[in-house]
């Protein structure tokens, strides 16, 4: 039986970050990465840019080709891990191989969630939009005369629309929620983005849902009918938590981890879309299925696996995403007092509560947005900065001279 000091299940962003975390402490210990997908880590959100022609398969690689060799990582790709035995510290792979670990990281990510939909099996061309394989399969099916139905007006569904809009005849998008991007936008923001998408041909059916499918027709709850050739379902995702659950580890919505990335099982860590984070904006444990958060978690877990000390204490939901040049940045929760600036092409909403910035929405106002995120992530009391000035424009001049000295006149 092969023995590795570090075994990582999953080969995406959290895994890569964990490798970097491990190697920041331990240059020697053998690392094995077991990945279900048959390829090295790639920027998963890039699949829509791939369809858009703004990147290609090579440029999508998350790390240079020699990253794994340089870091002494053994790759076992295209194989799934089936079982963990936390007592004996053994992972069993789908091909029957058993691997012994000292520290194990679960970075198995998430998978698409399809709610039960009547007649779905009658739809010939069905797709998800999560992986490179999904994108390649969808690309094959695209052609200028085809009509597409996307179920789900969330990040995945809308990025999919952006990727394919110019390559098909029409796209209809259905969502149960009354507005697009319901998890990250408020009504006003959603309207602005929606009209940008409509300008590129999106036909939205909001506050509506598919009652049943019949071949190339979707019958909506509202009574409307949509004829389509291709169906993309992007309703939601579910974390891959089964390995831990079956091994007896604590799982809520995602795998429960502490701020060091440890699961309830000894020597087992979890990171990425399969694991929960403590979201400082809402004050709750939840799955923050966002690429940067996977990287932060992976890195934290990696450092701790290698005997170092790292804690992730400022996890928060944030998104930066663009659709045809309309750029949306959001973070945190939309609670408390709202400061709002709306213009024809721009929108800013800042949410403050208990003297802290709790969340924000910025549309087409990307410049220096990181200063807002800093306020949020570091829970900086707004009394310590000139928040009135910050409302109009994020700037360091609103901070104290001491803060500027520490950040601009010293190594950081």
């Amino acid at each position, binding site marked *: 039986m092969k023995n590795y000091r570090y075994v990582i299940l999953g080969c995406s962003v959290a895994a890569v970050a964990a490798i970097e975390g491990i190697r920041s402490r331990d240059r020697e210990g053998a690392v094995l990465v077991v990945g279900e997908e048959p390829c090295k880590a790639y*920027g998963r959100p890039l699949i829509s840019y791939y369809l858009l022609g703004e990147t290609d398969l090579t440029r999508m690689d998350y790390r240079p080709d020699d990253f794994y060799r340089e870091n002494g990582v053994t790759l076992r790709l295209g194989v799934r891990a089936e079982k963990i035995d936390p007592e004996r510290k053994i992972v069993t792979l789908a091909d029957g191989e058993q691997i012994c670990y000292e520290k194990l990281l679960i970075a198995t990510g998430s998978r698409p969630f399809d709610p039960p939909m009547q007649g779905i099996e009658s739809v010939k061309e069905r797709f998800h939009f999560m992986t490179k394989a999904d994108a390649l399969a969808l690309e094959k099916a695209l052609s200028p005369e085809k009509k597409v139905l996307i179920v789900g007006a969330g990040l995945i569904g809308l990025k999919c629309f952006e990727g394919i809009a110019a390559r098909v005849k029409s796209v209809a998008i259905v969502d149960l929620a009354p507005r697009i991007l319901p998890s990250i936008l408020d009504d006003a923001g959603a309207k602005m983005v929606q009209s940008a998408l409509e300008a590129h041909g999106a036909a939205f059916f909001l506050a509506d849902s598919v009652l049943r499918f019949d071949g190339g027709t979707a019958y909506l709850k509202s009574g409307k009918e949509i004829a389509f050739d291709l169906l993309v379902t992007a309703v939601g995702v579910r974390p891959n938590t089964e390995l831990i659950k079956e091994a007896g580890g604590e799982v809520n919505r995602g795998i429960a981890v502490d701020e060091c990335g440890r699961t309830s099982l000894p020597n087992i860590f979890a990171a990425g879309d399969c694991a929960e984070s403590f979201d400082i904006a809402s004050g709750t444990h939840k799955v923050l299925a966002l690429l*940067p958060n996977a990287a932060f978690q992976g890195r934290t877990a990696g450092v701790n696996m290698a005997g170092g000390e790292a804690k992730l204490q400022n996890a928060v939901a944030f998104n930066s995403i663009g659709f045809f040049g309309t750029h949306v940045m959001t973070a945190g929760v939309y609670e408390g007092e709202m400061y709002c600036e709306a213009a024809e092409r721009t929108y800013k909403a800042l949410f403050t509560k208990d003297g802290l910035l709790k969340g924000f929405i910025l549309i087409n106002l990307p410049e220096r947005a990181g200063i807002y995120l800093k306020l949020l992530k570091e829970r900086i009391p707004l009394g310590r900065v000139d928040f009135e*000035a910050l409302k109009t424009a994020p700037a*360091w*001049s609103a901070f104290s001279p001491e803060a*500027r000295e520490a950040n601009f006149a010293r*190594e950081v």
Partner: protein
Amino acid sequence: MKRIYVNEKWCLGCHLCEYECAYANSGIADMVRALKGKPIFPRVRVEDAGEVHFAVNCRHCSDPVCVQSCISGALTKGKDGVVRIDRQKCVGCLTCVLVCPYGAVLPSPEGHAAMKCQLCTDNMMGEPNCVKHCPNGAIVYEEREAAQ
């Protein structure tokens, strides 16, 4: 490593650094030809707030959050400590702009990519051009200790 540091006390808010940056990264040998009649998009930006002025550019953090957050792997921290962006890999999602606490990673004017100070390692200047032309020692390029 050597980094650009800000001596706020001596910044006059003259904004020369911004023009020198735009020129350095224009790829055009003549400053007039590079900048005349065009809006500039420098990678160093001067903040003016009454009598307080200071220039902001990439801090080349020891643990850069932009690199960790990059969705495409376009941002890297080199062995020389310089945080660079591979504009071929960048798809312009601007996550780096959203996470940079300094507001030092900027959307580039043509869209499709972010831009940031690379200490003039990516142009013909050989040394940070903003520092070279700062008339009052308000930005310097040197080794300094981390904050205590």
